């Protein structure tokens, strides 16, 4: 790691500006797992080699600029150049080409080796299988328990992973092409309809990271993000167990219970699922544990009461083009509805 830090400094200083809050939440040069780390060291190898090549070419031109004689359009052109000079130049150019070929070959082998290393994790059985489905413009995430499918946990736009464990991601899309990119953990992989695919990764550093759709998928491509939490296996298990529980129904007469009734009787239930109720829509994200999620609207908004209200009332203002319609509720109803959603922990 020591070797890398100054390099990053060089890169940033060269731009003259350091991104103000690159706290490692979404960056390909801030690896939080073994795969991303290999990719990062590959990047720095390529960076240094190409930087040297660039500097050499520029220095040659700058030296030529200062040492070469000036001329004008009257100057007699050199049509029969001095053969000794030409031959020497030919040998030097030939040498430069040979160095280029060798450098490229080395880079190619390095790249192949890194590629193998990144993919080698898939050779042993994973500790955890997660199915990620891309939708316009949100991520459906399903934790699969092959032994007992009733233990499956479905959530949206968030990914919890235990550190030090092999995670298998199964990707699929039912609409257009998306691409899942979690730069701190792994390179991107496209979700192409009729081409389900998988990749494996391991998170080593606990923390919060961002993933984002990297293949243009229509209007709200920009707001299709996924919040990743890498945590200790114990914390992860706690989270997963919470996800497996059906949230208890609100007690009668409370504002939450009124909110539930509104939820079930208005359009909400046509698109969204809440386990333990009649709401079983599959068009929009599963809301069974929405209150436990840090963000709503695929990472566009923090999950606060005001944001929820704003989102329910006018999602088109926040994410123009989103498939969720505008909803008109009285202030009381809206309050009850958000109270209900906030109770879904």
């Amino acid at each position: 790691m020591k070797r890398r830090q100054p390099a990053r400094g060089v890169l940033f200083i060269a731009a003259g500006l350091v991104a103000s809050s690159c706290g490692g939440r979404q960056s390909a040069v801030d690896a939080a797992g073994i795969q991303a780390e290999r990719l990062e060291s590959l990047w720095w190898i390529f960076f240094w080699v190409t930087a040297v090549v660039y500097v050499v070419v520029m220095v040659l031109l700058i030296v030529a600029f200062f040492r070469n004689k000036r001329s004008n359009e009257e100057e007699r052109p050199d049509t029969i150049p001095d053969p000794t000079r030409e031959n020497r130049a030919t040998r030097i150019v030939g040498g430069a080409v040979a160095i280029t070929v060798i450098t490229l070959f080395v880079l190619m082998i390095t790249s192949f080796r890194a590629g193998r290393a990144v993919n080698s994790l898939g050779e042993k059985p994973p500790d955890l299988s997660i199915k990620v489905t891309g939708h316009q413009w949100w991520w459906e995430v399903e934790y699969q328990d092959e032994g007992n499918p009733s233990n499956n946990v479905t959530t949206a736009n968030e990914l919890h992973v235990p550190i030090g464990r092999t995670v298998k991601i199964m990707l699929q899309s039912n609409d257009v092409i998306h691409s899942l990119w979690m730069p701190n953990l792994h390179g991107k992989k496209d979700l192409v309809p009729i081409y389900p695919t998988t990749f494996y990764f391991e998170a080593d550093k606990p923390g919060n990271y961002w993933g984002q759709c990297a293949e243009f998928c229509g209007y709200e491509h920009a707001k299709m993000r996924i919040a990743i939490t890498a945590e200790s296996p114990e914390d992860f298990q706690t989270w997963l167990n919470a996800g497996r529980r059906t949230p208890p129904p609100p007690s009668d007469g409370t504002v939450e219970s009124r909110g539930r009734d509104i939820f079930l009787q208005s359009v909400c239930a046509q698109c969204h699922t809440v386990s333990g109720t009649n709401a079983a829509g599959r068009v929009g994200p599963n809301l069974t544990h929405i209150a436990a999620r840090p963000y709503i609207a695929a990472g566009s908004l923090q999950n606060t009461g005001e944001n929820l209200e704003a989102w329910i009332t006018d999602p088109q203002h926040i994410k123009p083009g989103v498939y969720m319609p505008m909803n008109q509720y009285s202030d009381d109803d809206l309050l009850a509805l958000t109270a209900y959603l906030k109770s879904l922990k």
Partner: protein
Amino acid sequence: MTKEELEQKQSSDITPEVIGSERAILERTWDNGKGFYAWLTDCNHKSVGIRYIVTAFIFFVMSGSLAVTMRTQLMGPENRILGPDMYNQFFTTHGTSMMFLFAVPVMLGMGVYLVPLMIGTREIAFPRMNLYSYYLFLFAGILLFVALILNIGPDAGWFAYVPLSGPEFGIGKRVDVWSQVVSITEISALAVAVNIVVTIFKQRAPGMSLSRMPLYVWSMLVTAFMIIFAMPAVMLSSTLLSMDRLSKVSTHFFNAAEGGDPLLWQHLFWFFGHPEVYIIFLPATGFVSMIIATFARRRTFGYTALVMSAIATAFIGFGVWVHHMFATPLPQLGQSIFTASSMLIVIPNGVQIFCWVTTLWLGKWNIKAPLVWIFGFFGIFVLGGLTGVMLASVPLDTQLHDTFFVVAHFHYVLIGGGIFPLFGAIYYWFPKMTGRMLNNTAGVVNAVLMFIGFNMVFFPMHILGLDGMPRRVYTYATETGWGNLNMLATIGAYVMAIAAIVFVVNVVYSFLRGPIAGDNPWGADTLEWSVSSPPPTYNYQYIPEIEGPNALWDMTKDHAVVTGLHLYSRELLHTTIHDASPEKRHQTHGPSIFPLLTAIITAGGFITFMFTPWSVPTAMFLSAVCLFGWFWSNSTQHRPPFASIKDNLIYDDGGVPREVAI
């Protein structure tokens, strides 16, 4: 013809009186008339070439303003200047227009103007088809921008990936506009490519064997061949897409639900899409070679190596397309092969850079605006090429693909490798095209501003991409921390816009008031500098014989010229492909209204295909009618009768006949 007859003929040749009277006849024969109708029908390669260049620059300014607007939207997080709907239309139109309506057409336009002059012929091989191709290009551009103004601009990206661009998700006529713009411009590009290949192969001045061809002509030849092999792939894919989308046809080529394949689109598109960047880059390498030779005052170092590099680039360029698809679910081993081929293509490009640097190293520099643009080319293109090496690596590409890093990379190669040499070329050949010099100081300021602005826009994008910013996003969250670098990039975009304004002002002012340029203001080598600026319609009254690898620099005072081409009809000299020894005379064609009519029918057929399949038979019938008129007016009996002074083609070498050809 006997020797005596020949000598008798010869005695009357090339006295000042003969030159004067013959020139007057040639002027009349090649006159295209005046007025609006003549303007519509004028198919001289120089008029068409300049129209191509001017039109392409207008599209450049329009799509450049789209880019500045997009940069304004991205200047800070959560900006709301453009919504996603407008932003998606803008970036799709920007990409489509820059690729199909600016970069390729402007390179072809330069080729159409320069190649016949540079190889010493009077006209391009198929002047009417050339005019037809221009009109198609113009109509496609109008279609795209009118659609954008009507809010039906394409919005699925310039790559139009299915299923997003398919009938299910790409609703309305937006993507249809894209596919028809692409189809129309590619017909136009194919027509020019064929034209350039035939012109170069058959019409070079005697003595200009392949090994003496200027490097620019080589680069255009290779480019034209690349177009012939690459463009059909994108025309096929855009046609299949429009058939999938047209409700009365509804084929299922890309419809996964009915056995179609979304990845098929990507293969077809990138099989064209990657060679496309070399189609833009190779002509620019020609500009670089020409400008460096002229302003370093020596022959280009490594002529053969440069020619071989261009050819190698063309071949390998067709074998790298999968590096655009490294993130798709394709088999690993197959991807590795494309890593190898993508790295392989660095070698010929490296050879080119080394040869140019060596030429400069061994030369004496005449530092003028065109050369300053070439310095900018080195500074930018080399960096872009090196980031290209990174993108060739499959594992690294999974991090860099579809991020702002890639946006930075391809703007470095396309603007650095294509546009900087192009601007250099405009500063270089403007005197030839207009007869007036561009202001040199303004040219240097222009180049420096463009260089600074460019690096301000695109260098930060490398870091943004590594920092996780994906491409094609209309906005980003505040907490991503991408705001500062985006602000810097946006300021750079305005600097680039100022540079573009300096250029436009310089061009307009110099066109009206610039100092008069002589025939050869730069002391350059290639043939076009031997004729007046601007050149006469017929380019060469007497086509010179080429005596060495450097056309003008090797030319002796009493060099041989070709005489005996018909004065009363538009006649060209055909030479053999390899040695360029005279073969025959060929009559070419003058102005005609049919190219315009046929172009209207062709473009109309494509545009109406957005709505009904009946446009195909209708357009076929109507274009058959037009082509009938076109070919009818081509046939010889409708041309002015022969009234030749000389029937045979003779080399005139100061009175001694050397060779006779029919």
